[in-house]
């Protein structure tokens, strides 16, 4: 089971192709405000993350996730739940 650090590293790596503005990524980076992603970008990114970690991140969960750190926490919970 991947630890939190490796989940974070993977998420940062997966953000890169969508990081058109070259924002430097930290745990506190916000998807909407800092990365300025629209709903279609979010869909593409979430689909990639779902496939990578083999999980479902429902829209209900997405509504609670604002930052990179929150996404990593959610992924860790989903992995632990398996």
């Amino acid at each position, binding site marked *: 089971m991947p630890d939190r650090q490796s989940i974070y590293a993977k998420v940062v790596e997966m953000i890169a192709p969508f990081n058109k503005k070259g924002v430097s990524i930290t745990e506190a980076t916000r998807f909407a405000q800092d990365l300025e992603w*629209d709903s*279609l970008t979010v*869909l593409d990114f979430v*689909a990639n993350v*779902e*496939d990578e970690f*083999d*999980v*479902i991140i*429902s*829209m*209900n*969960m997405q509504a609670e996730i604002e930052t990179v750190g929150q996404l990593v926490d959610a992924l860790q919970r989903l992995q632990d739940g398996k």
Partner: protein
Amino acid sequence: MTDPGIEGTAAAEGPSSPDLFSKFDPLIQQREQLLASGVTDPFNLVMERVESPTVAICNGRRTILLGTYNYMGMTFDPDVVAAGHKALDEFGSGTTGSRVLNGTYGGHKAVEQALCDFYAMDHAMVFSTGYQANLGIISTIAGKEDYIVLDIDSHASIYDGCALGNAQIVPFRHNDVEALEKRLKRIPEDAGKLVVLEGVYSMLGDVAPLKEMVAVSKAAGAMVLVDEAHSMGFIGEHGRGVAEAQGVIDDVDFIIGTFSKSVGTVGGFCVSNHPKFEILRLVCRPYVFTASLPPSVVATAATSIRKLMDSADKRAHLWENSKRLHAGLRQLGFTLGTDEPQSAIIAVIMPDLETGAAMWEALLQEGLYVNLARPPATPAGMTLLRCSLCALHSEEQVGEILGMFAAAGRATGCIS
């Protein structure tokens, strides 16, 4: 507080809260900018007189209608209109009540029977609008522990049905069978699953690969709901929709439809073979807590639905119209939403909202009405001129329409 002019009111106002309308400022600004350029407001057109399913008078000008969803042209059918007159005379102007109280008349049962006959299904439930049909069915059957898997390009009424309920919402990429299958496989096996699809997607007029999607949904043990709003009456041998045309209607658990397109009036419905379907009449809030359709509306709907069963010639002519308009627009150099005509909707893709609005107005001046569609209704932030054909558009009218597109397209620089 030192300004004597505001001192009195400042104390009365207390802590300053934001204006609840501030959130609309960007849209208000965009609209003002667009209208300042001098174009007619595309979302404020008035039909002064309506002569037929294909012609109306707008701004005093005779205008061909190419954006009404009146696919089968039933709105002026003499039998349909006569049935409405008769019901209005015999049952009055409205029911003033819910379907479960005083709002079920003979006509409501008759239109539900017409739907059962039309779809060859056991149960039909009629709602006051198509929007409410999706809102009611989706929010009621998918509960807190259940999952709804839906196409990302689903209609607003489907998303609102999800928002009204408590299920987990899982979207997948538009018309992507593999993306649907992957998500279904990740949902816990013992969780309830509802897959929500549309036959025809109304923005680009493209059709879903229902055959494959229904198969992977059933393999995962999911129930399947298909919204056939834009295909009823037209697609499929009996006009039952895309699920019929692709041979999977028997595996679809719920079909949602509307009376406001091919049927030619207003109202929505769900048909199903589920043995426990009738219980929904007691638990579905958008069905219970609203007044039922007026007697004249259900009478026109029932008459229209029965006539649509036997409309193969009209279906064939509508396909001819769709093919001819699609080929003609393409030849003129317009970019269209689909490579081939897949439905009675043909979407012309505009480079941006300003050009779209200018083209829309140029068409209106030529005497043609189409829909201007823009985000958030459209996918991928597109601006579209959406054309929906009618079975009663004559061959000559389609020719006229192409001439108007050529003139307006050149005047606005959309085509050379």
